[in-house]
């Protein structure tokens, strides 16, 4: 799965979890730019990504993910 494909798949997921239907996920999206991206919804987002992509993060990976770029790094390393 390429970076573009991953971003495309993340967009509806982010829109749902962060309750913003106009949200477009890019590789530079930062929590500060998304009002609904709090520490609470962050955990939901991780759980949903696991669900939608059918993967399981390690705790270390979870800790490493702060921004979309971090998430992409982990997802790309999985060679989905």
């Amino acid at each position, binding site marked *: 799965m390429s970076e573009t494909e991953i971003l495309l798949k993340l967009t509806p997921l982010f829109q749902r979890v962060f309750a913003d239907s106009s949200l477009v996920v890019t590789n530079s999206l930062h929590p500060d730019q998304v009002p609904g991206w709090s520490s*609470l*919804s962050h*955990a939901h987002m991780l*759980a949903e990504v696991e669900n939608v992509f059918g993967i399981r993060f*390690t*705790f270390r990976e979870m800790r490493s993910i702060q921004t979309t770029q971090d998430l992409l790094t982990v997802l790309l390393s999985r060679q989905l």
Partner: protein
Amino acid sequence: MRLALLGDFTIEDFKPYFLETTLFMRSFSQVEEVILNPDSELYKFKPDVIVVMFSTQVLRARYHQRSTSHVVFYEEVLRYHQNLREQLEQHSQSRIVISNFVEVSDRLFGNHDHLIETSFLQLTKDLNNALRSNLDINSLAAFYGHENWFDARFWYLSKSFCHPRLIPKVTERIQSICRSSLGAQVKCVVLDLDETIWGGILGDDGRDIILGAEGEGEIYRDFQAYLLELKRRGILLAVASKNDLSNVLDIFRHHPEMILRESDISVFKVNWENKADSIAQIARELNIGLDSMIFIDDSPLERSLVRSLLPEVRAVEFSGDPALYITELTSTDYFESSLLTSVDERRGELQQIESERTKLRTSFMSLEDFLRDLQMRGEITPFKADDLERIVQLTQRTNQFNLRTQRYNLAQTKKILQDETYLPLSVTLSDRLGHHGLVSVLIFSIRGDIAFVDQWLLSCRVFSRGLENFIMNEAMKILKEIKISKVVGEYLPTEKNKNVANLFKDFGFHPVGALWEIAITDYQDKPHFINQGPYERD
């Protein structure tokens, strides 16, 4: 509703599920701080309900790090929790809800954990027994499975009470407790009959309904037994069914496999009216609020009607598999109660007496609005070869709306299709909830300019929706086009088709001997809310 949520984990995770509620939240060690200080913001907040939740993760970490014996640890924890509860009761007028611990084995003794008095599993069990908490998180965690519940990664990441996906299940529990303290406690369950408390259609199957100790019948028997338990617990049972009362009472009185008996039912509303009216009448007769009623019906259409006309009544959403009725009903938490009292246990009986005293009529509600909102589409066409099997099935099985109860087999039906002296019509119906398929068969035999209604039947699934009016209107148009001047009908009574005894009369036909007649020019179109057209999927 003012709700205080306190927990020794990140209880702020619950916030998105309480958008309608005024919240006060404290996590971790702030919990004891606000509870123990009589002047704290918690008590100033004056909550209606205070929910205090303790995680097994925190308990377990403390337990494993204890410097005392198991017994001393247990005594200390018990005293700590008892003290918190006493302080809460002393300093507030609020309803206090405290969670129990999830009873989980840490498997230090493998399969023997449950036998060892000093295991962590035993500690959680002993605490739960001693504390008698009123928010049963232990059962909830067991229901979804400890493997899902305790996702350690989320605990270490953000001190989540459980896996984020299960948090809504916890908040639903809390919400149902809040609702029950607002007085919207369930007092009555209104039951449909056919395909709900027994299988099959009473009007068609009679005593051969599906109910018993074996096969599918066991499902319905167990469901009835569950409903009887609800009655024992003080919840009234009522019936709202589209059936003939005499048939229904015969089953309740004489069917050997019935668990529910006539005396278990506080009110019977068995008629062909819309069920919202029946439920409103039941509420009046029992003198209870609509918001204290639950409606159980296998038909998505009936549920949708009741939700539209009586939004306060909770219609249980079923997936459509009778084997799951109990599972789906218990997962609703509709039967949350503040406390069970002996009055509860007697309530069923007392209200049944009251109901017998006051048989009240209720105001009419707009069925029209509901039917209009359904966006029904009907189509009447000559028989299609593909439909013959369904048509044969309908003529074999339909008993209630069936004027002459002519049973045609496949060969006879094929013959009718080819015979030019017959006009065989079939009708399909769809609405915004889905497609009902072929639901009616209408066969005219034609002699010159006279059409005789050889066969007219309508599936009981689509009664009371004005479909017969649509069909008659459309049929009359077709007959006019082929220059028919008179329509003749016949009603052959059976045990099961009393419903349609007056059908021709209602359509303006005149009795002529044993038959009914109408000049086609005298026919007045009947009102309905069905548009002409085939089924279209969005």
